[in-house]
C-alpha cells in the first residue's frame, strides 16, 4: 500500500513537472507582451529596459528555471496588466468560483439522486423515460447556450433574476459569500443551475444504473422476504450501496466543474477565476494565464491522486492490480 502511494505520488509529481514545462513553453511562445504594455512611441532603449525588467531577455530555459524555483515558493510572477502577484489575483477570485461550483454540485445531487432513484426503480414508467430523455438533452446541450436561454427567459422576458454579477455578499471568516444574502442568492441561482445541468445528467444516469443493478441483488430479496418496507429498503439498503461509486464520481467531477465554470462565468459575468482567465487571455497577461493553469493542473492532479488512493483503500481488487502493475 505504501509503495503504491509513493509510486503514485512520484507519477503525480512528474505529471506536474511535465505540465508546467508544457504550459510555460506554450504560453511564453505567444506574442510579445512588451508590445502591448509599452507606449508604441517608445524608443529602442526603453523597449530593452522593459524587456529586461520583465526578465524576457534571458534564454527560455533560464526563464523556466526562474519560474520553477519561484513557483516552488508559491510565486508565479506578477500580472503584467495590474502589477499584482498573479497568485494573489487568482486566490481573490477563487472563493467566487468555488462557491459557484459547490452550489452547482449541491443542486446536481439534490435533484439528480431522487430522479435517478425513481428512474431506476420504475424503469418502464413514463416519468422514468422522460427523466432519461431529459438527461440525454442535458448531456448534449452546449452549456453556454443553455445559459443564454436562461438569461433570455428569466432576466429579459420575466425579469425575475439578475443576469450578471454576484450581487451583495457577506463576509464570513474573510471570505465573501453570496448565498447568505437574498440578493446574492438571486444572482447565484441561474449560474449554478447552468453549471449543474451536465453533472445533474451524469448523476441521474449513475444513480439509475446503480439502482437497477442493486435491485436484483440477494440482499434486496432478503430484505423483502424479511418484510422490510419498500421505502426503508430504498433509502437505507439500496442507497447505501449505490452511494460509494456516486461519492467517488462527485469528488472526481469537482475539478471538471471548476474548469467548466470558465464558460458559465463568462456567460453570467460571474467574477470568478474562470472569467479572470478569459480576460487575461484577451490581454495576453502571461503570468496570470500560467498561474491559473498551474493551479488548475495542480488541483486535478491532487484530485486524481486522492481518488486513486481512496479507491485502493476501499476496494481490495484495485490494490492487487496496482501492486502488479
Amino acid at each position: 500500500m505504501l509503495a503504491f502511494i509513493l509510486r503514485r505520488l512520484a507519477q503525480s509529481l512528474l505529471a506536474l513537472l511535465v505540465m508546467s514545462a508544457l504550459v510555460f513553453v506554450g504560453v511564453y511562445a505567444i506574442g510579445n507582451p512588451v508590445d502591448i504594455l509599452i507606449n508604441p512611441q517608445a524608443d529602442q532603449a526603453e523597449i530593452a529596459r522593459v524587456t529586461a525588467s520583465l526578465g524576457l531577455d534571458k534564454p527560455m530555459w533560464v526563464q523556466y528555471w526562474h519560474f520553477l524555483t519561484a513557483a516552488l515558493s508559491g510565486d508565479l510572477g506578477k500580472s503584467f496588466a495590474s502589477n499584482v502577484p498573479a497568485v494573489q489575483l487568482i486566490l481573490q477570485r477563487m472563493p467566487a468560483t468555488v462557491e459557484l461550483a459547490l452550489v452547482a454540485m449541491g443542486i446536481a445531487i439534490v435533484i439528480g439522486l431522487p430522479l435517478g432513484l425513481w428512474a431506476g426503480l420504475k424503469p418502464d414508467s413514463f416519468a422514468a423515460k422522460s427523466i432519461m430523455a431529459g438527461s440525454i438533452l442535458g448531456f448534449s446541450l452546449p452549456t453556454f447556450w443553455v445559459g443564454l436561454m436562461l438569461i433570455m427567459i428569466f432576466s429579459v422576458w420575466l425579469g425575475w433574476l439578475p443576469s450578471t454579477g454576484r450581487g451583495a455578499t457577506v463576509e464570513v471568516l474573510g471570505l465573501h459569500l453570496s448565498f447568505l444574502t437574498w440578493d446574492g442568492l438571486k444572482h447565484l441561482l441561474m449560474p449554478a443551475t447552468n453549471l449543474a445541468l451536465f453533472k445533474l445528467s451524469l448523476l441521474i444516469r449513475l444513480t439509475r444504473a446503480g439502482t437497477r443493478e442493486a435491485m436484483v441483488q440477494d440482499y434486496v430479496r432478503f430484505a423483502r422476504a424479511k418484510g422490510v418496507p419498500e421505502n426503508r429498503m430504498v433509502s437505507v439498503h439500496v442507497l447505501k450501496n449505490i452511494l460509494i461509486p456516486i461519492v467517488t464520481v462527485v469528488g472526481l467531477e469537482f475539478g471538471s466543474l471548476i474548469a467548466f465554470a470558465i464558460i458559465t462565468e463568462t456567460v453570467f459575468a460571474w467574477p470568478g477565476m474562470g472569467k479572470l482567465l478569459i480576460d487575461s487571455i484577451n490581454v495576453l497577461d502571461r503570468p496570470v494565464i500560467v498561474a491559473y493553469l498551474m493551479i488548475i493542473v495542480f488541483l486535478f492532479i491532487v484530485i486524481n491522486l486522492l481518488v486513486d488512493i481512496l479507491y485502493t483503500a476501499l476496494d481490495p481488487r484495485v490494490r492487487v492490480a496496482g501492486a502488479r502493475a
Partner: protein
Amino acid sequence: MSAAVPVPAATVAAAASPWREFASSYARSRIAVAALIVLLLILAVAVGAPFISPQDPYDLKQLDIMDSKLAPGGKSGAGWTFLLGSDDQGRDMLSAIFYGLRISLGVGVLSTVAALAIGIGVGLISAYKGGWTDAVIMRIVDLQLSFPSILIALILLAVTGQGVDKIIIALITVQWAYYARTVRGAALVEKRKEYVDAALCLGYGSVRIVLRHIMPNVLPPLIVVATVQVAHAIALEATLSFLGLGMPITSPSLGLLISNGFTHLLSGKYWISFFPGIALLVTIVAINLVGDQLRDVLNPRLK
C-alpha cells in the same frame, strides 16, 4: 439481441444483402429514422448553402445597415422578408445560419476524421510494438485524458491564438488520445487471435499484418464512436468560439453567431442568438441519435 426477435418472412428474403439487413434493423427505431432524415437535411443545407440562401451574408454589397436588427418576419428596404430576422449588420439570420452550419459541420467532421486517423495510427503502433513505446504513449494518453477537453483546448488556443487551422488542431489534440486508447485495447485483443498467428506463419510482414488484418477488425466500432464524437467536436468548437477563442470573425460558425447575438440578447433581440442556437442544438441531437442507433445496430455488445 437480433437473434431473439422473430424475423418476418419479408426480411428473410432480403437478408441476402447485408445492407438491407442493416437498414431494416436501423429502421426499427422511428426516432432514429427521423433523426437521420433531419441530419441528411442539415448536411444538404450545409453543402448547398451558397445556392439556397436568400442572401450571401458575407457579401457587403447585399447588406443594408438600414435593415439591421429586424425581428423575424420583418421586411427589408428592398421589399423581401427576413424569415428569422437580421443581425446588427443587416444580415439575414437564415442565410447566416446556413453558412454557419457549413463551417461548424466542416470543422467538426474534419477534426474528427483527422483525430481518428492519428488515434488509429498511434494506437496500432502502441499495441503492436508494446514495451517502452507502449508505456510512454499510454502515459501521455492517461495524462491528457485526466483533464477535461475544454481545458486542454483552451490552453492550446490561448497559446496559438485564433484561426480556423488552429481550432482544428485544438479539436484534433483533444480527441486523438481517446481513439488511441480504444484502438490499442481492441488491437491487443485481436493480436492474440489465431488469424494473426496464421498470417505470421505465412510470413507476412508486421506492417501488412497490422494494416490488412488487425486494422479492419478494429475499425467498425470506432467509426460509430467517431459519429457521436462529431457532435462533441461541434459543441466544443461552438463553446470556444463563444468564449472568443475559436473561429475568427471571417469564418462565422454557429458558435460565433450565438456569441454575436449575446450582446443584443439583453435588449430583447433574442433571435440573433436564439435561432443559431436552435440550429446547433438540432444538429447535435440528430447526430447523437443517429450515432446511438448505429451503435446499437452494429455493435450490440457496447449497449
